[in-house]
């Protein structure tokens, strides 16, 4: 088993753990964190797996860089929505 597959398997474990946390958690903040972790697992697979045939691949790395920026701004937007929801009287842990 090469390093590339090891990275990808660690990514798969991270995704599985965050699926567990996403479903089992009640608090919306924890759900958001779990969703973010799931994204990190996907990025780890995307960067780690393509290394095994032709060496370091710039294309998935650029795609992951794009993905990280989108994930950061989507998380920030979700946090804004969450805080607004709580301030207008919503229960963050329904």
């Amino acid at each position, binding site marked *: 088993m090469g390093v590339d597959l090891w990275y990808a398997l660690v990514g*798969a474990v991270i995704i599985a753990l965050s699926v567990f946390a996403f479903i089992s958690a*009640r608090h919306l903040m924890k759900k958001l964190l779990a969703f973010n972790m799931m994204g990190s697992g996907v990025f780890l697979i995307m960067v780690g797996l393509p290394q095994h045939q032709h060496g370091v691949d710039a294309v998935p790395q650029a795609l992951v860089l794009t993905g990280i920026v*989108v994930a950061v701004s989507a998380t*920030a937007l979700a946090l*804004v929505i969450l*805080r607004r929801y709580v301030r207008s009287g919503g229960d963050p842990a329904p």
Partner: protein
Amino acid sequence: MIRVLGAALAAIITLLGLTLALWFAPATQVNLPQQVELNIDASGIAHPITAVLLNFRSYDTLLEVAVVLVAVVAGLALRERGPRVTPHERSADPMLQALTRRLLPLLVLTGVYVLWAGSYAPGGAFQAGALVAAAGVLARLAGYDIASRVDRLLRLGLALGFILFLTVAVSAMFGGRPFLNYPDEWAGSLIFLIEAVLTFSIGLTLLSLFVHAPGDASPQGGGDYGR
């Protein structure tokens, strides 16, 4: 309890499915690193990741900038009316003030360096934008309220990166070239111009998502599992 069991089941199924998919992953037909290597001279940029990001796959990057812009517009639409609770103009903590005053120029300088380095080494617009945003957040936490002083400029700055990128992309079509195809001799400088403006816009975007978030609320969340 049922919820936890169901979650565990879903997690195990996900893990099994992903492991199988990874184990039996088909071999790639195209040698992408070689393709990048062969075409990098035509891209106008020496570093492969930046070349992929802003030349070979610039359509992705354009749409990404659009997504980030939509996120910040939605975030600004959700901000609260009325007097915002603004912190004191200067933080009372002398330690924080001194640290901020020394760190801020350093952060901005590092941001500019990372932007410049993007053409030949790891770096580029997004990393530099994150540094600029970090500088803004630090200034905000220390009590320097930059963002709300220049509100109108901020809104222009948010859209500037996307506008410039789209202008460059479309103006290629006037010369009979395809969408997002840079002229060969200008490719390097056009990419650097786009990157510089994107750095500014992304930094402002992340900063304004932080600054305009609704204020703190009384904690209402309870325990998670013990219900």
